[in-house]
């Protein structure tokens, strides 16, 4: 099959998944209605207060706060979108639409289309919330975008994108090998490893230079959260940023290849969840010709 044909097919799958994601009631509420409501409340509150800036003394506010906020919104946004991919794949597997779609596109395109399509929807959501949070915070705190360094402006989107791809691929693969939503087991937890550093958020913010915190930044599943927070609260050497991004991107590349092969087998298997050993074997079997 010609490469162009594959590309347009993937484009069609992406468009379809994106459209279904943004037409969803939950998405409309979370991305349009709720932010609009909050924005309205802030606006009315501001009008009632008068146009003057807030009275919070600026000395009490750490300048890195906006970067931490941004890091959190981006990270949580990427993570939640990954979880949505998880449920999307499970739902499609349960509804048995898979076989019909696979008679038109490859399993790889099906998976990639879902991840990219839902990712775009998630991106919109993250942007909306980031903008809203910024304006909301500004009503009460003397926050400006000047708190962000050019390095952050360049690398945060990269951490977001690769972080999302990592979580989404892990979750899509996990879902493809599960019997149903209720079968639980290790598969449902797999994405949480990416979330783990958030448990230690306080340590991350207070002691960003601890050796093991620095080391954690190079462990790809931890990279997006740890590096974004570290960059927010301390000076991080450029080589650390570059190396962590390279490791993360390389991991995502290898993982998607592994995941596509697991997905291909898992998505057509009904009635039981795959064991970790089976998943490992599927993922490593040689590519078909």
């Amino acid at each position, binding site marked *: *099959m010609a490469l162009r044909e594959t590309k347009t*097919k993937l484009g*069609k*799958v992406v468009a*379809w998944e994106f459209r*279904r994601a943004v*037409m*969803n009631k939950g998405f409309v509420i979370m991305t349009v209605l709720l932010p609009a409501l909050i924005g309205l409340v802030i606006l009315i509150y501001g009008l009632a207060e008068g146009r003057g800036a807030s009275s919070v003394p600026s000395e009490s506010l750490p300048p890195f706060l906006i970067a931490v906020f941004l890091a959190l919104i981006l990270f949580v946004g990427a993570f939640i979108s990954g979880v949505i991919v998880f449920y999307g794949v499970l*739902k*499609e597997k349960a*509804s*048995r*639409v*898979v*076989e*019909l*779609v*696979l*008679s*038109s*596109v490859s*399993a790889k395109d099906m998976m990639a289309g879902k991840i990219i399509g839902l990712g775009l929807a998630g991106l919109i959501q993250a942007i909306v919330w980031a903008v809203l949070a910024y304006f909301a915070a500004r009503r009460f705190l003397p926050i400006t975008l000047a708190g962000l360094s050019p390095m952050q402006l360049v690398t945060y989107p990269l951490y977001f994108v690769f972080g999302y791809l990592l979580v989404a691929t892990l979750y899509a693969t996990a879902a493809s090998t599960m019997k149903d939503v209720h079968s639980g087991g290790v598969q449902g937890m797999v994405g949480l490893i990416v979330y783990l550093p958030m448990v230690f958020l306080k340590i991350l913010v207070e002691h960003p230079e601890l050796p093991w915190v620095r080391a954690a930044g190079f462990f790809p599943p931890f990279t997006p959260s740890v590096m974004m927070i570290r960059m927010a609260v301390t000076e991080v050497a450029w080589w650390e940023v570059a190396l962590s991004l390279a490791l993360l991107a390389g991991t995502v590349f290898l993982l998607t290849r592994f995941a596509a092969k697991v997905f291909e087998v898992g998505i*057509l298997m*009904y009635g039981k969840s795959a064991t970790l050993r089976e998943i490992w074997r599927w993922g490593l079997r040689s590519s*078909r*010709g």
Partner: protein
Amino acid sequence: MTVLEVRGISKSFDGVQAVRDVSFAVNRGEILGFLGPNGAGKTTTIRMIIGIIQPDRGEIQFTLDGGSGEVDKERIGYLPEERGLYADAKVLDTLVYLAGLKGLSRSEARRRALSWLERFDLAEWARRKIEQLSKGMQQKIQFIAAVIHRPDLLVLDEPFSGLDPVNQDLFKEIIRELKDEGVAILLSSHQMNRVEELCDRIFLIHCGRRVLYGDLSEIKEAHGEHIVRLRYAGDASFLRTNQRIKNLRISGDWATFVLAKGVEPDAFIRNIPRELVIREIAVERPPLHDIFVAVVKGGENGTP
């Protein structure tokens, strides 16, 4: 003209051989009945034809417009046995999307989708969500998705299951039309009467192997003994003591029996004595159902 040729394909999963050295062909404008008991390897074979999984050994060749090659997903239509659609999507959107994946433009897909929906009496459902449709309606939508791009090879896996008789007839009618238009059709079904009505040739797979393959009428000829249904008057002792018939059942004035192998109906009827008066008589080949059961239970291995 052969559209699909399957040559010696085998597939095993985790050491279990699901399909062994299976070969067959489907021609333009014919319906090949694809039969087999549950777990015989039918779904695996179909998935290999569709290109969802790859055979371990063997070749699947697709011939179109004189050129041969791998299966072209845009030229096949597939109604899987595992039925499902996007519950949250609208009927027309779903059809336009699925047709788009088969290479149709949006406008063409829309036009054809609407005319098919019309044909299936679902026009007013075009803008409803799939989840609002009954199971039978969803099956029609899937059928439309399988044929909307006018495929050259159509694979139908249990198309009639779950449909009421009226809709079964509608499906049958459309399948015949597609056949007449030159589509090569592979029809898998457990409903032997439907297979007999529709199929030109059949292929029976059992335990992953081909056990029957060929012309339906020839297979019936080869496997069928004659079944005689006779309404009679007078003395039936000729039947009771006859060595050339078996499975005799008499109830009221009806006698049903099977002619032993090698006994020709004509010779048999001429030998019926005067004491046995024939009121009505019918000599039939056994239904495909009986051949299927005999072959599968008997583990028969004859391949014509």
